[in-house]
């Protein structure tokens, strides 16, 4: 095994730990919706929420980086350049995350001064990490870019996937620099902030996961390079062709000009099309291989990725993306429902798939199967579908009672939040959240014991 792949396994381990913290923080935040006064003035909702969403970003990012460090040596037939540095950066990143988390939990917030921005909390959703830590993330991403580009140069070979990956790294790096801004004008602040959040999540990340899935397909199903590269280009063309101006659906209501209503609505209406293409593609791949693989969990998680992305991004997204609807659904639990489903489908499932693939190779397991992963898979996916269904009900109640008939005032907000449908939905979300957490527990147990359990009966093994 290459050193790069050993570093990748560390990234995966850290990602799974952060995934766990995300789940715990999510359960706390969900409880705060259900039980008034829970941890009030001790660990307020804002803090549990920050821990929930920031660890989500970080575990996905670490999952992406781990995936690339895993596949890179195989792709270029050589060790990753500067992998020692990458390993050092990994420990620095873990240390920084621990310190930031402690500061969030213990110090929580500071006064209205630059010191707070640099050392405590920047108070901008998703990028709350204080500036010193944001610099750390920039350095980690810079080293990551260096590893990939230097290895490609040394290998004197640019494959199609590597070309796409390298071009994608530049905006991935550059956009994060927006995380440092502290712009007084809220409209302008949100304008740039969406460049970071949307163009990362619905732009560079989509391309990154596309590259990772391309590597996975070649390894998991032995699909030919020419095919995966063609489809990667198609995906990039469609995803960025619709996604870049799809940014407009965040510019409906922040003070930006009215033309964004038309642009944002139009391009986001096109966004489900490539996602449907991926569903068709998934059926083709699974069908032509008759689901035969030596790594069932990796294949199932990859299928979950295609379907979850379509449902979470496509169906839930289209439901609320046209401006006439978004006026009511924007900023309600409806958005939360869409957000959970889309992040899960588009990224989380894909990374879990890669982790199963990597562990199979790392532990030299002839066939990954057994019953346990199925429990993890089922509990996590059912828990997620339950959560987004419950949140959808709450969101619809909120859109109706607070916005459509309530008039969006504080009193209307309270009435919306107290409405029976809203309350039932938010209660059900917690229950499904617990189910999801159980699934996480099973997943971790399965990952830890994979290949270390009693060997599968040789007679059941298919030729690898």
């Amino acid at each position, binding site marked *: 095994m290459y050193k790069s792949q050993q570093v990748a396994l560390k990234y995966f381990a850290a990602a799974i730990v952060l995934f766990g913290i995300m789940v715990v923080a999510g359960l706390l935040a969900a409880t705060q919706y259900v039980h008034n006064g829970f941890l009030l003035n001790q660990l307020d909702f804002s803090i549990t929420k920050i821990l929930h969403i920031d660890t989500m970003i970080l575990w996905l990012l670490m999952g992406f980086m781990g995936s690339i460090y895993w596949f890179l040596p195989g792709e270029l037939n050589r060790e990753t350049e500067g992998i020692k540095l990458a390993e050092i950066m990994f420990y620095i990143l873990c240390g920084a995350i621990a310190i930031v988390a402690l500061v969030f939990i213990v110090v929580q917030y500071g006064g*209205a001064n630059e010191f707070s921005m640099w050392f405590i909390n920047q108070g901008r959703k998703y990028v709350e990490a204080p500036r010193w830590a944001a610099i750390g993330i920039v350095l980690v991403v810079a080293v990551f870019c260096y590893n990939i580009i230097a290895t490609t140069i040394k290998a004197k070979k640019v494959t199609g996937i590597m070309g796409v990956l390298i071009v994608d790294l530049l905006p991935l790096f550059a956009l994060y620099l927006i995380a440092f801004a502290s712009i007084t004008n809220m409209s302008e602040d949100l304008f740039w902030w969406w460049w970071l959040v949307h163009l990362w999540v619905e732009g560079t990340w989509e391309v990154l996961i596309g590259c990772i899935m391309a590597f996975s397909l070649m390894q998991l199903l032995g699909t030919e390079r020419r095919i995966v590269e063609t489809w990667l280009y198609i995906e990039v063309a469609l995803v960025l*062709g619709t996604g870049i101006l799809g940014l407009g659906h965040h510019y409906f209501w922040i003070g930006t000009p009215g033309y964004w209503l038309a642009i944002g609505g139009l391009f986001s209406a096109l966004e489900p099309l490539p996602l449907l293409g991926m569903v068709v593609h998934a059926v083709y791949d699974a069908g032509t291989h008759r689901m035969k693989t030596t790594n069932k969990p990796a294949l199932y998680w990859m299928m979950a990725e295609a379907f979850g992305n379509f449902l979470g991004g496509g169906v839930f997204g289209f439901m609320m993306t046209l401006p006439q609807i978004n006026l009511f659904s924007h*900023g309600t639990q409806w958005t939360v429902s869409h957000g959970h489903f889309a992040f899960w489908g588009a990224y989380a499932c894909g990374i879990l798939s890669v982790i199963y693939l990597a562990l199979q190779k790392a532990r030299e397991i002839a066939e990954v199967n057994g019953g346990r992963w199925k429990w993890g898979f089922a509990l996590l996916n059912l828990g997620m579908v339950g959560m987004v269904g419950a949140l959808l009900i709450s969101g619809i109640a909120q859109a109706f009672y607070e916005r459509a008939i309530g008039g969006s005032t504080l009193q209307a907000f309270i009435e919306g939040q107290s409405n029976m449908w809203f309350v039932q939905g938010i209660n059900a979300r917690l229950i499904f959240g617990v189910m999801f957490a159980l699934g996480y527990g099973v997943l971790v147990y399965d990952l830890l014991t994979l290949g270390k359990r009693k060997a599968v009966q040789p007679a059941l093994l298919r030729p690898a």
Partner: protein
Amino acid sequence: MITQDPSFWRAGAISSTVVMSIVLIFLTVDSLSAIAPGGRNVPRYTVINQAIDYQFDAARNRSVPVIGGEQLLFGRKYSEKEAQALMDKGKLTIQSRACIDCHTFFGNGAYYAPDLTKAWLDPVWKQMWMPMTQSNTREEAMVKFLMDPDKYPTWGRQMPNLRITRVEAEAIVGYLKWMSSIDANGFPFGFKTAETQ
């Protein structure tokens, strides 16, 4: 067939990305001019010296901010420079207390607490908070609430005490007043201000 050639799709990916990026850059330049203070959609910070309302405009079929005559905040008139300083402080307070991780601004943020886009115009200050905090003005009621939210519990879900100082609270109030004057294409929908009620 040309569509089987990867280089055809590579060219497609590059061109669609480049074209869309260029369009985005043009729109960004225009949008930034529209949302700069004093731009088409966003008033100058000194708008806090004036009365602000939010009314339905039948011609545009949506609610729009309406800027009226002089209505001082905390009984003083802010110069351009003072208003800028107040806004800087207000935004820094909002960030340092991570307000956006419970509340929303223009519907962006967390959804645990009410949207603050038009909070300045909310009828609840006059109806509830002014009597409750024994204040004569809305801004005074807001400051008292922000400094000691646990003294004025409103409903089941409470705002935590974030040790907001008087200076910071005044800055937040000023910030919210300015924000309520921004034309956000009709968001929030159907908002009834104290005046329209």
